[in-house]
């Protein structure tokens, strides 16, 4: 999509772009946290339409990308066990572990299945009483209610052969961790709309105050993103920092209380390791003791050795906006979506893959 007329709402796109160009007088660095937004920004060519003063940094908001390698190894190990059906969302299959990806495990005979919903995995467990069904439950707050529901449904069914391998991550602690790094120069944030649909916007107020940065809860379509950027730029130009909600047509300030209740029933907050970023305190969910029977970590009590990331992958710096994907020496050479070295090259929502497919910035790569 290169021409304005190709957007779903070209007049509005043009209006926001004009306003951004008029409002912006200084260089600003803004991070969009959500991988869905990264995908939309790069795919719709928004980077080329924004004033050159604005640098968009693509944050750690792709759950596939930040799932640590030892968890991928654990999923691969489980998948290769006899009588185990390992299920996950499609994006997870090609993520490289230390030796294999789930796709490679599948080619070695493991029963690995791609599902659309964790609730389908419960049905699979019910239909296969002689097998253990494990759902690789990755995701941000948006996905947590579905993964929690699968545990509650399995509990109601009295299933003893269903469990989840939880790798849940949370957005606010990630913003906190990013801002805590002295090398990071981000001045404003677009927060993820669908995450806030569940959690509400209350958690972001303290971050606005702590770091004196504007945070605007934003949707994922080009019009939403440009509107969100405009709202951040207007605040920055006036030296303000406020929490605003661009996506109010979907996001209610209190979020979805029913969804939060389900999350609280099944999960509790824990420290989590983010691939490329490292350990972030209180940044994820784990299954509560009460539902330990559905926690694959406890059920199969596996200890996987910690493994080092490929040292040539600079994913951590990319996810914090210190480097752009095409500044990685491996980008498009040793690392491509077909043969990814690091996780951000795997999912279409990862910054490296988004750049590889759609960006002309590198100059050497044609649009895929």
């Amino acid at each position, binding site marked *: 999509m290169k021409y304005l007329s190709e957007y*779903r709402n070209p007049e509005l796109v043009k209006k926001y772009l004009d306003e951004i160009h008029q409002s912006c007088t200084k260089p600003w660095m803004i991070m969009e946290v*959500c*991988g*869905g937004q990264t995908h*939309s920004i790069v*795919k*719709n060519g928004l980077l080329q339409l924004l004033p050159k003063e604005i640098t968009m940094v693509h944050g750690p*908001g792709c*759950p*596939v990308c930040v799932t640590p390698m030892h968890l991928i190894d654990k999923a691969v190990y489980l998948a290769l066990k006899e009588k185990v059906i390992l299920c996950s*969302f*499609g*994006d997870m299959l090609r993520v490289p572990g230390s030796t294999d990806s789930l796709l490679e495990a599948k080619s070695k005979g493991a029963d690995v*299945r*791609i*599902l*659309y*919903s*964790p*609730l*389908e995995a*419960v*049905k*699979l467990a*019910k*239909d296969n009483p002689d097998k253990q069904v494990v759902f690789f439950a*990755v*995701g*941000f707050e*948006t*996905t947590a*209610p*579905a993964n929690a*529901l699968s545990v509650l*449904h399995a509990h*109601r069914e009295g299933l003893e052969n269903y469990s989840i391998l939880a790798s849940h991550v949370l957005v606010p602690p990630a913003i906190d961790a990013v801002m805590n790094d002295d090398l990071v120069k981000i001045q404003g944030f677009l927060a*993820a709309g*669908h*995450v806030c*649909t*569940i959690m509400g916007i209350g958690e972001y107020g303290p971050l606005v105050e702590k770091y004196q940065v504007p945070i605007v809860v934003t949707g*994922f*379509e080009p019009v939403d993103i440009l509107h969100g950027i405009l709202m951040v730029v207007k605040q920055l130009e006036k030296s303000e920092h406020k929490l605003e909600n661009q996506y109010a*047509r*979907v996001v*209610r300030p209190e979020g*979805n209380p*029913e*969804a939060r209740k*389900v999350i609280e029933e099944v999960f509790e907050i824990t420290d989590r390791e983010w691939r490329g970023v490292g350990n972030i305190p209180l940044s994820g969910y784990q299954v509560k003791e009460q539902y330990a029977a559905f926690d694959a970590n406890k059920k199969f009590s596996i200890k996987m050795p910690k493994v080092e990331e490929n040292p040539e992958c600079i994913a951590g710096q990319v996810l914090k906006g210190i480097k752009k994907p095409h500044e990685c020496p491996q980008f498009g050479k040793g690392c491509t979506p077909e043969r990814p070295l690091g996780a951000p090259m795997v*999912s279409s*929502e990862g910054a490296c893959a988004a750049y590889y497919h759609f960006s002309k910035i590198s100059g050497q790569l044609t649009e895929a």
Partner: protein
Amino acid sequence: MCLAIPGKIKSIETMYDGLVRMAKIQFGGIMKQASLEMVPQAKVGDYVLVHVGVAISIVDEEEAKKSFEYLEQIGEIDELIEHTQTDRNDLPSINSSKSQSADGA
């Protein structure tokens, strides 16, 4: 994977002795099941945002249609279609089915 897709509730059934409401939801030409546990007020004919088999909020009809068109245009609906065609393991079977309303609402 974090996108939520808007669709229209065509019918609602219950399972687990009425504890859980499941809906048939239409996304363009595709029909999928989703849990309505997070949207207790949702009724047949409403548009809901669905993320990995769970409706997470009720949305305005106009907005839902526009946003679906956009998702279709950028190819995000393809993933949904792919999974609909390849997986034979549909959502949980509905035991005590008490249909609230039929199609066409």
